[in-house]
């Protein structure tokens, strides 16, 4: 079993189709929705964790792409601007999933993109606006 956290973008013409439902049923996947939005451009945005057998995951995601869904790993959309970050730590208390933590030895602020659920709470909480979320 494997879990992948992905960002799915649904173009307008797919908005009324039960793609997600078919994806999890046909390919025997479990899903955990982190965030769902309709953007101003009437695109659907779905951020979720998908868990299943590796082969099924790959097949499923390929199938969804063929339907016209744009897919990319979540970690590509949430980044830390390394030049802007001063490693103060002002962000760590607002992060609900401990994706932002302090290394108690080096005092570096660690950003673990794999734990991030793209809630964006850290974005305004960072005094230096080092966290960038692009959706």
């Amino acid at each position, binding site marked *: 079993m494997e879990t992948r956290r992905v960002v799915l973008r649904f173009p307008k013409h797919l908005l009324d189709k039960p793609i997600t439902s078919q994806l999890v049923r046909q390919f025997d996947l479990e899903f955990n929705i982190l965030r769902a939005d309709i953007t101003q451009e009437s695109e659907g945005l779905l951020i979720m964790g998908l868990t299943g057998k590796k082969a099924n995951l790959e097949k499923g995601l390929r199938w969804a792409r063929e339907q016209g869904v744009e897919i990319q790993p979540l970690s590509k959309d949430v980044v830390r601007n390394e030049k802007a970050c001063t490693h103060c*730590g002002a962000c760590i208390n607002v992060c609900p999933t401990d994706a932002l933590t302090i290394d108690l030895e080096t005092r570096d602020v660690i950003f673990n993109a794999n734990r991030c659920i793209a809630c964006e709470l850290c974005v305004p909480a960072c005094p230096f606006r080092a966290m960038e979320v692009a959706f």
Partner: protein
Amino acid sequence: MKEAFTVPKTYAEINEKIRKGQAVVVTAEEMIDLVEEEGVKKAAEKVDVVTTGTFGPMCSSGAVLNTGHSTPRMKISKAWLNDVPAYCGLAAVDLYIGVTEPQQDDPLNTVHPGQFRYGGGHVIEDLIARKDVRLVAEAYGTDCYPRKALDTWINVKTLNQAYLLNPRNSYQNYNVAVNLSTQRDIYTYMGVVKKDLGSASFCSAGQLSPLLNDPYYRTIGIGTRIFLAGAQGYVYWEGTQHSPSEARGENGVPKCGSGTLAVVGDLKDMDTEFFRGASMLGYGCTAAVGIGIPIPILDEEMARYTAVKDADIVAPVVDYSHNYGHNEGKPLGYVSYAELKSGTININGRDIPTTPLSSYRKAQQIAGILKEWIARGEFFIQEPIQLLPTPDTGQKFKPLKERPVSGGVA
């Protein structure tokens, strides 16, 4: 006696060693280990200078700029730098830009918590980065200064003078902010503090912080040469709210905010690595300033002071949901910086996760750079030309005593 006991040392002796490249310089962190291993006396003999560092939000900061005279000349009475108002109540083309000044059209806290994306601190950061900054100015016009309007780009490279002039930096110790409200998170200059003792914000480099390593201001005073935002700067006065007569621990270290420094330095030599505009959600704009101060080890006492460690420095835990704002109540307790840096403190029997606002990593970096400068013979120790007020003056930070004005508006 075989003891070739060389302490006490003088400033001149230490500077002579720096000139010859023979000075022994360690950071305040390294001094802790050295004193632990070899004792105060040996460490005092061996070490000439201990370097300190701190990097955190310091609201009472700003820059003086002289733009040069336009043709025709103008006595600027209102000015904006990238839409951030600057103070013009000085001479014709002298401006002061403060770091907490928000942009002219900033929505502030109308939609709470406001974001305060750009302010005076960001203008100064842009100047240090040698970016062009837009200056818009107005004047009423006089016989000697006929011009009434100006809209131009300026750049730090071509300004006559551009220097940081910070009335209060480098606080010796500070509050730990918590939130006793069970209703809501609060947005403060100590960052977001979560409700119901959900988090505790602290803002000091602790054992690396300059004034915590010289608790009685024996060597840090007016004229002291310092690292200021990547350049060589100076202490020019006691900082505003300098309050030396606060309660102190047995080691002499104040148990709450006490001493402060006013500092000055040339913007043209600074580095944005050590000066950053900052936006505190729901509070306002400010800037983070990097400061490093060398402490000469004149004798055993200075060796003992500079070996102070996080476990021996305590700070008061203060409620910022009500008590701080209303000048009420007492601290909920005292915690050490060792506890604060462990990630959790215990208050009222509750474990509270801690949130640092001061970058310890940058503080280490600054202490390291200053150490290198001194070791390379590029930075000399300046004896203060006058010391700062010490605890025996009884000087203490006073609240404002309001006196009713007849017919005034309350």
